[in-house]
């Protein structure tokens, strides 16, 4: 059993997804979905522990040896990303039980949970596989289901948002598959380890740089890196709360993982950053994303949209870390994957609580919520502090590493931009806090605190975002080792 864990993390949910659609009623479907999520959560923890203890795990599906069959290859990066996805999924599914019931009609419940598990499975599949085409297949599973999930938002604009995402996402997927095809034409293989071995020999052929370009553009579309982020704000704003919380914390993270995987493992840091001069493109884009998107966030009236723009800015932080192409920088990027998942998950969940009681997350409807929904707003403040990067929160840890990476390279202006981004975060977080705490609520509203079914998962993430901010040694250690694996240094 335990030797099958690498594949079980994906196939058990994949078996349960159609089951959720079959059972028909939403309660049973939820139980199936919860089982899938918690199963994957448990397995992901086990995998991380095993990878830490034993090193990279390989699992040859179908019993065919590596380049001929499909290999699951789980190194520390894969395991860590899978753990992020599984953790958020496990929390989000608890949250969904109450939230989805309020936002999605009951007769769609079963299909909704089926799509939820599919999205979850797809993301897990991407993170653990060692085969580039398999990445594409699972990318499709997760993307298609994500489009449908986003379209389930109450607001009619959810449909257009999902459509926009569908178009942009499909372009991204097409680019990715073109890139994979071009690589295949030059090497004859789809296995990541095998590709990494064979690519350097043909790297001078025009095809490979072009393949690299297509992959980069395709992934950055999925990643919503500025300026390819246009689909993200609408999608996050109009999707059902549980979906936003889940997708915001996982989908872009997995795209960052792909970026890491392709840049560092498949093509190798030398090709990506010396031959292709990738940092010259990524770093400016990341910096612009951090500043402009934070500025745009300040001017939003819809808090979910505000957080969505903040997400685009935060993606900038992750990409910035990667663009240093140093152990510290990549560590910062990987750490921020995890840290941002926790805090954004918490923040979007808090907004879901507001949605549940107030029916809107527009600023003017949030007056006085600090008194009426104290726990919800306290969770928002907790997540917000992390976004700002106050000590003892996960956001601080990310920033600590990111600034360190910049200073290590002697790029103090970059470090200054990172800090400036934090300050902009102060403004947009405080904007919400002020409305919630300093404006009087409409006395006629009988808004109450959100139910425990929403508060418990929200607070689980808030507490986690403080816990891993106070004791960051575990995550920082994993991230550092993962970065060393990617860059091929260290043990």
């Amino acid at each position, binding site marked *: 059993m335990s030797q099958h864990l690498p594949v079980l993390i994906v196939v058990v949910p994949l078996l349960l997804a159609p089951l959720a659609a079959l059972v028909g009623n939403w309660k049973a479907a939820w139980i199936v979905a919860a089982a899938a999520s918690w199963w994957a959560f448990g397995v992901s923890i086990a995998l991380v522990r095993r990878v830490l203890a034993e090193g990279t795990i390989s699992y040859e599906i179908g019993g065919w040896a590596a*380049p001929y069959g499909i290999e699951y290859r789980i190194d520390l990066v894969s395991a860590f990303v899978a753990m992020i996805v599984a953790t958020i999924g496990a929390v989000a599914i608890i949250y969904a039980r109450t939230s989805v019931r309020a936002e999605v009609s009951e*007769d769609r419940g079963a299909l909704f949970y089926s799509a939820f598990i*599919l999205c979850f499975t797809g993301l897990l599949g991407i993170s653990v596989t060692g085969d580039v085409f398999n990445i594409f297949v699972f990318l499709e599973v997760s993307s298609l289901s994500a489009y449908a999930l986003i379209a389930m938002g109450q607001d*009619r604009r959810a449909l257009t948002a999902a459509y926009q995402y569908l178009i942009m996402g499909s372009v991204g997927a097409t680019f990715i598959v073109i890139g994979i095809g071009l690589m295949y034409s030059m090497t*004859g293989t789809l296995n990541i380890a095998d590709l990494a071995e064979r690519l350097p020999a043909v790297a001078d052929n025009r095809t490979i740089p*072009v393949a690299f370009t*297509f992959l980069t553009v395709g992934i950055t579309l999925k990643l919503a890196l500025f300026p390819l982020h246009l689909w993200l704000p609408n999608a996050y704003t109009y999707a059902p709360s549980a979906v936003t919380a889940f997708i915001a914390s996982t989908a872009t993270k997995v795209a960052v993982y792909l970026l890491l995987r392709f840049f560092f493992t498949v093509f190798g840091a030398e090709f990506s950053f010396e031959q292709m001069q990738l940092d010259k493109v990524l770093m400016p884009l990341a910096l612009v994303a951090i500043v402009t998107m934070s500025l745009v966030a300040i001017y939003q009236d819809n808090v979910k949209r505000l957080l969505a723009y903040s997400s685009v800015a935060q993606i900038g932080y992750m990409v910035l870390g990667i663009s240093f192409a140093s152990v510290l920088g990549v560590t910062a990027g990987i750490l921020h994957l995890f840290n941002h998942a926790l805090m954004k998950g918490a923040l979007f969940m808090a907004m879901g609580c507001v949605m549940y009681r107030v029916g809107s997350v527009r600023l003017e409807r949030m007056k006085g919520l600090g008194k009426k929904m104290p726990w919800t707003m306290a969770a928002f403040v907790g997540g917000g502090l992390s976004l700002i990067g106050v000590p003892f929160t996960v956001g601080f840890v990310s920033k600590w590493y990111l600034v360190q990476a910049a200073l290590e390279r002697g790029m103090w202006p970059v470090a200054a931009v990172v800090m400036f981004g934090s300050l902009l975060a102060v403004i947009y977080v405080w904007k919400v806090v002020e409305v919630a705490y300093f404006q009087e609520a409409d006395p006629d509203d009988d808004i109450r605190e959100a139910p425990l079914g929403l508060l418990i998962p929200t607070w689980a993430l808030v507490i986690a975002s403080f816990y891993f901010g106070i004791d960051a040694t575990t995550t920082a250690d994993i991230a550092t080792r993962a970065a060393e694996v990617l860059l091929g240094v260290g043990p």
Partner: protein
Amino acid sequence: MIEFVDVALLVLLAITGVTIIRLRNLFAAVMMAGIYSLLSAALFVVMDAVDVAFTEAAVGAGISTVLMLGTLALVGHQEKKPRRPAIVPLFVVLVTGGILVYGTSQMPPFGHADNPIHQHVAPYYLEESEHDIEIPNVVTSVLSSYRGYDTMGETAVVFTAMVGVLLLLARGPLPRRVLLGGEWRTVRPGTTREELRAEAAHALDADGSDGDGSGGTTPGSPGSEDIVGEQGGKHG
């Protein structure tokens, strides 16, 4: 001769593609898309990729045409004129095309035996499949066994597509055929409850929300409230 067929098919493909873009009548565009699929299927045959050609013909020219026609039945036949010329998309397409041409210009010549794809992995399939799996069609052995896991993923993609379409389009519980007064009728289960909910949805619609999701979420679906195939029984 083969070259001639190649060129002819490619030219036809290009003409069809441009025609699809130019056409404002969607019905005609759908037909042209079907033709496009058939042409590409033919191209795949020429390239000896019979399995792919088969799929393309069945899916591209067959089912997807029907589905697109189904869509047209809902949204009408005429495409709205775009408000402004699509300069940016054109630019993106040209750049992408340019890069592709550039990138493929040094690619190994098509079908050459020395190509990397014929040197690595693929020879194993060709040589060992007969012994490993003992079926003559190597494509099938690759799809179902060597890379069976990918096929499983693709099956999941297909299933995901269904879940997505049903989430978006299916209204309420699944329709059912019942015998009413000697006549077959298609009704939803629990119609009375449905009526109640329709009222609630109506109230909610005033707030601009979608209510229970039974309201027409797709723009331009007038009168979609009535139940599937009410008179279908006549032919039974």
